[in-house]
């Protein structure tokens, strides 16, 4: 009975909060709250000269990132051949941005072309997937998608696993979900051909498939 009463309270609160929010938005109609500047306005436009822009962006390798991840990325980019993809590397069709929330998500995915999640489903949540660009080429196949699996000891430096290499990913974004990672691959008309990123433990390799395999 107590629980039932609590649940009724919760339901009442639910409606109250959104009505309050709507009231606030109404009162604040001229405050430009919901249409304030998008979170990712200024994007780099100059051609990258550094191989490692990851540390400059709002990124997974901040000061509190685990050492293994910083070191894995440092090693991966040490030769200068690869860098993280920049927003202006992508060409997501406008037709894909069907509403405000889709637009925000896609804009965010372009300026943060990486995801941290339990991608290989080993209950370690810090695997890192990044869309990278080969700096030695300027053709459409210059992209790659690389994943670093979190080491079980939290110390070993993981090797990169290439999900895709030398492939056009200019219309691809990464999407995290509770079971790992989804790739959204857009067509010009805004339609998608999406897939689940799956880990094959025996082959120690990733694939992207129509079905989730776990």
């Amino acid at each position, binding site marked *: 009975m107590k629980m039932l009463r609590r649940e009724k309270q919760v339901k009442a609160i639910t409606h109250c909060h959104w009505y309050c929010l709507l009231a606030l938005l109404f009162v604040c109609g001229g405050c430009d709250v919901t249409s304030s500047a998008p979170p990712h306005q200024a994007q780099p436009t100059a051609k990258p000269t550094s191989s490692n822009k990851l540390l400059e962006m709002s990124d997974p390798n901040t000061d509190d990132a685990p050492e293994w991840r910083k070191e894995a990325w440092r090693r991966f980019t040490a030769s200068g051949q690869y860098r993280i993809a920049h927003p202006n590397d992508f060409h997501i069709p406008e037709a894909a941005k069907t509403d405000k929330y889709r637009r*925000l998500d896609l804009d965010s995915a372009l300026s943060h072309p990486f995801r941290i*999640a339990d991608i290989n489903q080993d209950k370690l949540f810090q695997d890192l997937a990044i869309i990278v660009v080969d700096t030695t080429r300027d053709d459409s196949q210059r992209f790659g998608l690389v994943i670093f699996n979190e080491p079980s000891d939290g110390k070993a430096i993981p090797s990169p696993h290439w999900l895709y290499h030398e492939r056009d990913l200019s219309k691809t974004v990464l999407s995290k979900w509770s079971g790992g990672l989804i790739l*959204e691959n857009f067509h010009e008309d805004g339609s*998608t051909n*999406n897939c689940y990123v799956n880990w094959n433990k025996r082959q120690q390799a990733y694939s992207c498939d129509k079905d989730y395999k776990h």
Partner: protein
Amino acid sequence: MHSSSLSLLNLANYDKCGGGKNGLPEREQSILTLAADAFDSRNAAMMAAIWSHESGLQLTPGGDAGPAQLTTWWSTNQPNLIVGNAYGSWNGRTNQPFDGDVRDNIATLRNIYYFLRERHGSDYQAAYWYGPGDRDNPSNAAHNREEYAKDVMGRYDKLKPYFDCLKQ
């Protein structure tokens, strides 16, 4: 309307508090979590921590239903916690983006978080029970939930100062 509420909804401190950087919520996500809970920074931080773990603070993720990654367990067993169009057309795991109401989905996350905290007694326990079991091997469930809760509470520790900062 209290001026501090308007200021908070406008996120006047967003840039100063580092919003959108270093894994902290972007403007829209900050508003959604704060507004869903009457601007309580503790609850907003817990909701954002779960949201961050579930779907990386995305608004329209695929997989399970919406930002909160709801499953049918909740709609079946606790339907009174579900708000409006929290599921959209979701009818089982999908690789297509969420098409329901994002605000309803976040409000449902809040309801579930309240419910779990009330029932189990703490934020840690709320996260623990929000986490996944193991359908194939139930003996793994406790370990899975512990790891989930530890990760969520780590995110909370980073998010709480951010939401406190927004309220200053």
